[in-house]
């Protein structure tokens, strides 16, 4: 591994960028055509696709900072890959969420609360909604756009600083960078916690702005870390089979990633269940409707498609990874850990769908005055295209960074500890 010869993998970055640009063009073409016909589902695909990668990258940003403040000895060789990736976080927000928020027609199509003329299931217009008026100190368009700009700014600055000093250490061999990164991380963790909470409120919770949950930011954080770890396991598996982690990634690294995956699987379940449990126990209509539309048809009381998705969340996204990861060998055998990582990755996409897609659509002919959008539609393929498209851009930026920087933090004070990491 020498700085003069970047790894052969990095040469592919232009192909990924090309694929990403084509996907963006297709997605925005569909989204614009949809909005022109008063449909928002195509724009929602862009939101879901970008949020998937925002979630992954926020998780990696947090893991980068957390391993910095805890001086995690195992981390350096894995953290370098997070550092190479996190610059994509502000880029994905700029390419996905920001245009949706700043363009008036997309904003009105996706975020009902921004469109005063939008008709609610009750038959009233948003502009006359007392619930929105009470929340208008937060949910007003000016502040919304300021917040979206702040997401780019905060995550952009943090990613830049975390990268700059870590990369600088590769050439000037100064231990001071480690102390500086320690300080940036200590400030960055609470700052990111607030920022990611606001982002989760704005991009997901506010899609159904009558509903509120104070757990929502923590849920998004838990999901982000789970997804970040799943992508890390998949990525490091690839990089240790013909990449720059060849012969470096050992059983103990897999074990620590597996243990973290288990911990955050439990944490995600704890948070998701607590949110459900509090709303179930309090039984207040302003809160329960959000889960009701995700369980049954309001007119007939029969289970709808979202009930099946809920069950998948419990059994496929919690119980299966949880029970698998309890076993030591799942955490150390590369193929098994990889399988669990894919299960978590797929579950994370379904969880985003579960949170973003079900919407009450005003329908005068329906007995309850609205219908709930179904889960199974052909638009799910557009969501997957969006995830793949933003993914291609993320990978392109990752490989481009890797072609310019050391792919192993060769002068990190803990690099030997990381390479020789032992259970």
């Amino acid at each position, binding site marked *: 591994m020498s700085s003069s010869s970047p790894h052969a993998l990095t040469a592919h970055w232009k192909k990924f960028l090309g694929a990403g640009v084509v996907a963006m063009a297709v997605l925005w073409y569909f989204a614009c055509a949809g909005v022109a016909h008063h449909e928002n589902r195509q724009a929602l695909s862009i939101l879901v696709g970008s949020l998937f990668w925002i979630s992954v990258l926020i998780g990696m940003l947090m893991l980068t900072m957390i391993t910095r403040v805890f001086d995690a000895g195992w981390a350096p060789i894995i953290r370098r890959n997070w550092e190479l990736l996190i610059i994509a976080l502000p880029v994905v927000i700029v390419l996905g969420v920001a245009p949706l928020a700043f363009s008036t027609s997309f904003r009105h199509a996706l975020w009902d609360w921004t469109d005063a003329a939008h008709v609610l299931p009750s038959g009233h217009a948003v502009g006359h909604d007392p619930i929105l008026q009470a929340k208008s100190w937060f949910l007003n368009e000016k502040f919304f756009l300021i917040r979206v700009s702040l997401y780019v700014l905060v995550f952009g600055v943090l990613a830049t600083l975390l990268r700059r000093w870590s990369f600088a250490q590769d050439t000037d061999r100064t231990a001071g960078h480690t102390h500086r990164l320690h300080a940036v991380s200590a400030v960055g963790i609470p700052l990111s916690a607030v920022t990611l909470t606001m982002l989760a409120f704005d991009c997901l919770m506010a899609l159904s702005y009558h509903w509120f949950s104070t757990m929502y930011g923590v849920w998004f954080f838990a999901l982000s870390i789970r997804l970040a770890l799943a992508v890390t396991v998949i990525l490091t598996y690839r990089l240790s089979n013909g990449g720059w982690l060849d012969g470096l990634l050992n059983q103990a690294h897999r074990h620590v990633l597996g243990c973290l995956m288990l911990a955050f699987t439990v944490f995600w379940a704890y948070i998701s269940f607590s949110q459900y449990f509090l709303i179930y126990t309090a039984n207040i209509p302003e809160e329960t409707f959000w889960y009701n539309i995700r369980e049954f048809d309001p007119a007939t009381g029969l289970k709808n498609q979202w009930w099946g998705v809920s069950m998948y969340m419990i059994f496929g996204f919690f119980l299966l990874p949880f029970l698998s990861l*309890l076993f*030591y060998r799942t955490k150390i055998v590369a193929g098994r850990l990889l399988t669990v990582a894919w299960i978590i990755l797929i579950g994370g996409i379904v969880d985003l769908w579960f949170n973003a897609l079900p919407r009450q659509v005003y329908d005068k002919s329906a007995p309850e005055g609205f219908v709930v959008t179904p889960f199974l539609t052909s638009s799910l393929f557009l969501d997957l295209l969006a995830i793949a498209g933003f993914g291609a851009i993320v990978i392109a930026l990752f490989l481009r960074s890797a072609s310019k920087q050391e792919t192993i933090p060769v002068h990190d004070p803990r690099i030997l500890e990381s390479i020789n990491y*032992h259970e």
Partner: protein
Amino acid sequence: MNERNERIHGVACTFRKVSDVFHAAEKVRDAGWKNWDVHTPFPIHGMDQAMGMPRSPVPRLTLLGGVTGFITGCLLTWYTNSYDYPLIVGGKPYWSVIFPFPVLYECTILFAAFGTFFGQFIFNRLPRHNHPLFELPNFSRVSDDTFMIVLEARDPQFHLDESRNFLQSLGGQEITVIRD
């Protein structure tokens, strides 16, 4: 010590360097010994593998404790709230898996902790107030600057003279016979 009760516990020898005791342990493992131990002043990374130690069986008792706790929680909430004194609270059913879930998982965690705590006592054969090794005059040095390998008499391979010679061939010093 009573003459007729005097039995041999095993043979001990000391080493002065980590690498010596590490490689000696590998040779004892490869010779197929089952009942033997290494004593060191500090944990040595990789010693588990060098000794051929299997994973601890304690997690199995943790899992057993957790499952027991979950079932106990189910029975507790079902018996009290639905069977013995059926009571509607907050319009919820007499029993479902949702409303008592905090009780269920707290019981799961509590019993899993019991399983872990008492499991390690069982598998470490604790409490134990004395051990024949404590009779060795130099045993306290293995918490200071010496490493020790002990071959125990209950191993089927144990034969006093052969075991002594084996330790000598490994480079062990101060070869001592430990009596019960």
